[in-house]
C-alpha cells in the first residue's frame, strides 16, 4: 500500500495538488466538511423520524423522499472530495489505520442507507404500520447514527494516526 501511495503521489493530478497545496487541500477539506453536514443532517432527521421524535406529521416514506436524495447527493460529494484528498496526499491518507477503518464504516453506513430505502419502497405499508415501532428497528436507527459519528471521528483521526500506536502502519515505517 505504501508503494501504491508513493506511485500515486507521482501522478499528474497529485503533483498539481501538491504544488497548489496551500489552497487546494483546504478548499477540498472544507467542501468535505460541508458535505458531512448534509449527510449528518439527513441521517439525523430520518433517524429521529424512525424514533418518533420529529417529523411525525409526515410518513416515513415522505421523510425519506425529502432527505434520501440529499443524502445520496452529499455522499457522492464526499466520495469525490475524499478521492481527491487521497490523490492529493496519498501517503498521509492511505498509510493510516484510521482511514481504512473509516472506509469499512462508510461501506456499512451506506449499505444500511441503501437497504433501508429499498425495503421501505417495497414494503411501505409494513414499515409505516409495524416495523417503525419495533424496538430492534429503533436500535438500528441509533446504531446507524453512531456509525456516522464514528466515521467523523476516524476521519479526524487520520491526522492523528499515531494515537493508535503500533496499529498505525505509519508507526512501522
Amino acid at each position, binding site marked *: 500500500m505504501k508503494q501504491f501511495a508513493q506511485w500515486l503521489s507521482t501522478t499528474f493530478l497529485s503533483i498539481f495538488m501538491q504544488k497548489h497545496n*496551500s489552497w487546494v*487541500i*483546504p*478548499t477540498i*477539506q*472544507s467542501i468535505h*466538511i*460541508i458535505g*458531512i*453536514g*448534509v*449527510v*449528518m*443532517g*439527513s441521517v*439525523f*432527521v430520518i433517524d*429521529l423520524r424512525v424514533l418518533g421524535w*420529529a*417529523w411525525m*406529521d*409526515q410518513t416515513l416514506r415522505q421523510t425519506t423522499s*425529502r432527505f434520501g436524495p*440529499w443524502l445520496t447527493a452529499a455522499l457522492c460529494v464526499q466520495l469525490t472530495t475524499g478521492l481527491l484528498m487521497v490523490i492529493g496526499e496519498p501517503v498521509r491518507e492511505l498509510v493510516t489505520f484510521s482511514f481504512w477503518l473509516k472506509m469499512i464504516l462508510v461501506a456499512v453506513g451506506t449499505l444500511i442507507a441503501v437497504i433501508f430505502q429499498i425495503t421501505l419502497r417495497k414494503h411501505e405499508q409494513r414499515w409505516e404500520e409495524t416495523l417503525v415501532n419495533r424496538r430492534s428497528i429503533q436500535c438500528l436507527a441509533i446504531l446507524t447514527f453512531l456509525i456516522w*459519528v464514528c466515521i*467523523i*471521528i476516524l*476521519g*479526524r*483521526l487520520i*491526522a*492523528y494516526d*499515531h*494515537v*493508535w*500506536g*503500533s*496499529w498505525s502502519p505509519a508507526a512501522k515505517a
Partner: protein
Amino acid sequence: MDSTAILKSLEASGLATRIRDALWLFPLIESTHVICLSLVFGTILIIDLRLLGIASTHRSFKQMASDILKWTWAAFALTALTGTLMFITNARVYYHNFFFRMKMLMLVLSGINMLIFELTAGRTIHRWDKDPSAPRAGKAVAALSLAMWIGIIIMGRLIGFTTTRAATLAPPPAGVNFDDFLQGTPDKTGETPTTQPERK
C-alpha cells in the same frame, strides 16, 4: 490584566495543560467539534432551505422549527464548548490568527442575522407558516445565514492550517497511545512534551 496576560493564564490553566499532555484528548475534542458542527450546519440548512422555498415547502415552518431547532442549539452549545477547550490549549496563537478572528466575526454576524429574523419575518410566522417560502426578509436572512455558515466552516478549516503547521514537524509525543490502552499501562502524562502534535 491585559489580553496577553489573560490568554497566557488560560494556556497555563490545569485544564489546558491536561488537554495538551494527553495524546487522545485534543483529537477527541476536535472530533466532537466536527460532529456537532456538522449537525449545526445540517439542521440550519434544513430550516434555511424551507425559508427559501427550496425544500420541505409543504410543511408548517413552526412545526419544523420546533422539531429541529432544539437539536441545533444543543449541538451548537457542544460545538462552542469544544471550541473553547481547543482555544485555551493555544490561546495566544488562536487569538492572533486572522482566520480565527474572521470566524468569530462571522459567528457574531450570524447571531445578529438571527435577531433580524426574529424582528422581521419571525414576527409574522402565523401569516406565512403554510406558505411554500418565507417573505422576502426571511429569504434574505436564510441566504445570508447559509453563506455565513459556509464561511464559518471554511475559516475553521483554515485555522487548522495556519496555527499548527510548525508543530507538525515535531515527532509525536511519547505517551499513552492505543497500545498502552490495550495493555493497561498507567498514564505517563508528566513525560509528554507540551507541544501540540496536531497536523491540520
